[in-house]
């Protein structure tokens, strides 16, 4: 029971931070599983993909409701991503565990750097920086734009 509560709390925390900072759930859930729950890197990554589906699905439906989706672009990116998934799966299951961990650490650093860059950008050119999606400047309906932290 205690373990169930711990995992649930971890999920809420990971989701909360993801939503607040506009990062995706996977970025936080994978390390949480590896460092707190003792998962292997690959098991954590695989489970993370399954775990993020409710948040992604709900977010996607909500964005469609708001009219923020360009269907052909979404379909093109989505369908082509499947080929990428094939390659990514082969790579992930072939590469050593430690290579995956190093790669994931690099990904975390990239996300951290992006956040630093956003802060820097806001201080220099607040309006210009907000338009590219590379800024996390809160906009009036930020929650409507990004309710599930679609990145990564």
């Amino acid at each position, binding site marked *: 029971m205690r373990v169930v509560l711990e995992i*649930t709390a971890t*999920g809420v*925390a*990971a*989701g909360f*931070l*993801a*939503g*607040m*900072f506009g*990062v995706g759930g*996977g970025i936080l*859930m*994978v*390390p949480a599983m590896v*460092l707190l729950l003792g998962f292997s890197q690959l*098991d954590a*990554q*695989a*489970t*993370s993909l399954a*775990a*993020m*589906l*409710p948040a*992604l699905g709900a*977010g*996607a439906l909500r*964005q469609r409701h708001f009219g923020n*989706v*360009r269907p052909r*672009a*979404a379909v093109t*990116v989505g*369908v082509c*991503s*499947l*080929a*990428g*998934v094939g390659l*990514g*799966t082969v*790579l*992930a299951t072939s590469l050593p565990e430690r290579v995956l*961990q*190093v790669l994931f*650490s690099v990904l975390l650093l*990239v*996300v*951290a750097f992006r*956040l*630093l860059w*956003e802060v820097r950008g806001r201080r220099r050119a607040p309006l210009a920086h907000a*338009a590219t999606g590379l800024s996390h400047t809160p906009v009036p309906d930020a*929650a409507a734009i990004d309710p*599930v*932290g*679609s*990145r*990564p």
Partner: protein
Amino acid sequence: MSVPGAGETRRLVGIGLVAGVLSALMGVGGGILVVPALTVLLGFPIKVATGTSLVAITATALTGAAVYGLLGYVDVGSALLLGLPAAVGVLFGAQLQQRLSGDTVQLAFAAFLVAVAGALLVRA
């Protein structure tokens, strides 16, 4: 609604391919790549880039999860215990974004991510 031209289509194809690899290789959604790519390479407004990305990467993550699930790597129980609360948590986090997320907090979170990266590297 505009139909993508040939140049746009090529970019969308490229974005999809790379996002798919990133997602399946790292266990993330892929949005970190797709959203900036849609704004910078295709000129989508940020709201539309975010919404379009969400729809696209739902398919990406779903496929990845299905493949890994068939291969036996997915812990379904943990996925539910983490993922359903996370969906709720995200809504709260997004709502509080305006009030709580300032520069200092964002820098602290960036530092936290660096620390997590370090913890993973130590284990590697």
